[in-house]
């Protein structure tokens, strides 16, 4: 057992870790003293005294802008971590935390402590996660900004290649984060910020550093004539060095880098400007943040209650809350894909949250889409995601457009009325031929029993996936036992063997075709017989609409649907609930009816 009086290797390492920032600061200050001739205190004071009042005030304004942007930056980080605390108090706490930690240094701990103390409801773990996230993403954003600035203002020959590498790396990382939204490190799963969050973080970081650089520029004594763009680029690089060093307040590395990149400038004037900048940008905010941390209750009483009117009455229910009586049967896909029922007041949406978007699928389950647009936007904003409505009807698309949303027509829905379905007529002869082929081969189609023959169905699904290169996801159903249990299933039997099946989403007024799985060597017409069985069953149950599919507009080809729906096909325009007749001379097809051989 180790005696506490004898230092262990762990203690030594801890001591080294704590003293490293001070050592770094001392080393940089020593290096600085060898590069420049340090002026006397009286010279510095004389230069500081020569600064005009407007310069001090302008620097204070620029500092305020910079910290305001940092507060906004913290809000984005809160939203990424879904703390639910991205309001004004969290922003003020973020400002205070950064003001405190940039003075104290030591990386994670001061910032986490400040956030934990100033934001009620934030746990110590969340505060640490938040501080880590802010630190890492700010470094990344600063690297991108530095890269762009180095390309735009190449003060040195090495600026261009280094800037190019930084920008290319950032673009590569962005693409990677989109394709693989979660980074798994053993048991640890890290979620990249969404593209929306990345843009927001970059913009706030840009505003912050531009304002901070401007504060330094405005404090330059009259003897120095340094262009704003040059000084800002120098400041960006010096700031990156200061953050990497973890030196308290970046003291040493920041100054050393500024003097290294501006060797021809008067060192006394530059040092005076840096000292003034330290007073305005570091000391003043740190003093304010210390006062805030001493009296966190005071901050709370200053806060007005925040109620977001858009999200009043918002609540989330699992997908099992889907009602049988809903306009679009296809909303049943959320049972499988991690979707949920999101209520905004009396309106309900079938919502799916992904790393990048919050997408409302099809038309609202209950209520009016126009009333959900603002809440959906706010809901998505709270998780740094993009709001989206996917496969809505033309009427709702119009409502979205009237509200200023961008609307894109992407698909056409093919539907038929089961009661009006008729196989007679010369233009259905191909269909009748297919049905005869299937019947001659001894094929029988039956509704699936309550206890689905899952083993055979799964084997068939595997066979189908092998032939088709796997199943797609999200709005396309995939084979899963519990999911199928909520659907209407029809099985095609041949010699006591299942050679195909289809499944349909069901609601009170509509059925919607979901899965189609047919054995590669099934007889010709197997799919047609399955679909005819579904049409007959839906007609018997008085279902008004049978939705075959929503096909990309460009995929619509001449074909079969006219035969299904009779001489006056009841076709829906993309997502439209109103029926539109097919254009004269155009027949519509269902790609899904082109069965595999």
């Amino acid at each position, binding site marked *: 057992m180790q005696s506490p009086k004898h230092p262990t290797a762990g203690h030594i390492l801890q001591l080294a870790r704590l003293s490293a920032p001070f050592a770094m600061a001392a080393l940089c200050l020593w290096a600085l003293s060898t590069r420049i001739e340090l002026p006397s205190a009286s010279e510095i004071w004389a230069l500081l005294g020569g600064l005009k009042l407007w310069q001090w005030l302008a620097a204070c304004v620029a500092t305020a802008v910079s910290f305001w942007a940092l507060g906004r930056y913290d809000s984005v980080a809160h939203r990424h971590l879904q703390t*639910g605390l991205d*309001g004004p108090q969290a922003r003020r706490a973020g400002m205070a935390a950064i003001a405190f930690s940039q003075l104290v240094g030591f990386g994670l701990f001061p910032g986490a402590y400040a956030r934990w103390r100033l934001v009620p409801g934030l746990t110590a773990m969340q505060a640490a996660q938040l501080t880590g996230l802010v630190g890492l993403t700010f470094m990344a954003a600063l690297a991108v900004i530095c890269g762009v600035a180095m390309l735009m203002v190449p003060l040195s020959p090495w600026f261009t290649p280094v800037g190019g590498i930084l920008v290319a790396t950032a673009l590569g990382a962005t693409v990677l984060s*989109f*394709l693989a939204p979660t980074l798994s490190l053993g048991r640890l799963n890290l979620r990249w910020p969404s*593209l*929306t969050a990345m843009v927001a973080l970059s913009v706030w970081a840009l505003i912050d550093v531009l304002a901070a650089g401007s504060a330094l520029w405005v404090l330059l004594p009259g003897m120095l004539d340094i262009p704003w763009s040059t000084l800002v680029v120098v400041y960006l690089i010096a700031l990156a060095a200061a953050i990497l060093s973890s030196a308290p307040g970046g003291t040493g590395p920041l100054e050393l880098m500024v003097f290294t990149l501006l060797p021809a400038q008067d060192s006394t004037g530059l040092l005076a400007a840096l000292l003034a900048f330290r007073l305005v940008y570091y000391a003043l905010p740190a003093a304010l943040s210390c006062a805030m941390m001493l009296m966190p209750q005071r901050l709370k009483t200053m806060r007005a*209650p*925040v*109620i*977001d009117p858009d*999200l*009043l*009455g*918002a*609540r*989330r*229910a*699992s*997908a*099992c809350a*889907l*009602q*049988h009586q809903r306009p679009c049967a296809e909303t049943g896909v959320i*049972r*499988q*894909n991690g979707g949920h029922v999101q209520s905004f007041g009396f309106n309900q949406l079938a919502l799916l949250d*992904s*790393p*990048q*978007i919050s*997408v409302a699928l099809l038309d609202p389950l209950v209520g009016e889409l126009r009333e959900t647009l603002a809440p959906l*936007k706010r809901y998505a904003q709270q998780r740094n995601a*993009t*709001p*989206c*409505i*996917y*496969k809505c009807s033309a009427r*709702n698309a119009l409502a*979205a*457009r009237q509200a*200023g*949303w*961008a*609307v*894109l027509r*992407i698909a056409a829905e093919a539907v038929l009325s089961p009661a009006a379905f008729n196989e007679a007529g010369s233009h259905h002869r191909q269909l009748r031929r297919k049905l005869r082929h299937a019947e001659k081969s001894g094929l029988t189609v039956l509704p699936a029993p309550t206890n689905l023959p899952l083993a055979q169905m799964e084997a068939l699904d595997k066979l189908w996936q092998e032939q088709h290169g796997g*199943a*797609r*996801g*999200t*709005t*396309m159903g*995939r084979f*899963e036992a*519990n*999911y199928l*249990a*909520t659907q209407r299933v029809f099985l095609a039997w041949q010699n006591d063997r299942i050679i195909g099946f289809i499944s349909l989403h069901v609601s*009170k007024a509509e059925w919607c075709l979901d899965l189609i799985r047919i054995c590669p060597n099934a007889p010709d017409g197997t799919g047609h017989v399955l679909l005819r069985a579904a049409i007959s069953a839906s007609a018997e149950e008085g279902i008004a609409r049978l939705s075959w599919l929503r096909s990309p507009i460009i995929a619509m080809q001449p074909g079969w649907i006219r035969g299904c729906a009779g001489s006056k096909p009841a076709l829906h325009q993309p997502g439209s609930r109103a029926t539109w007749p097919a254009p004269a001379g155009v027949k519509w097809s269902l790609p899904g009816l082109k069965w595999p051989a």
Partner: protein
Amino acid sequence: MACPSWSEMVIAGLEMARLINRPGKVLPASTALNQSVVAAGSFATSTAEADHEDAGWEDALQTPGARAS
């Protein structure tokens, strides 16, 4: 398909394409076996559930800045 702006439409389009073409594991419909009550079509299938929903409303109304869940 609708989004607040065309730039967001680009992000949403790319993400939908990713989700459809590169799906992850099949998420089980864990509650699917309870669907018989859903199929019955009532808004609140039990008093307890209705109470739970009311609690969500109260949370949303009383917690400043918090989202009901």
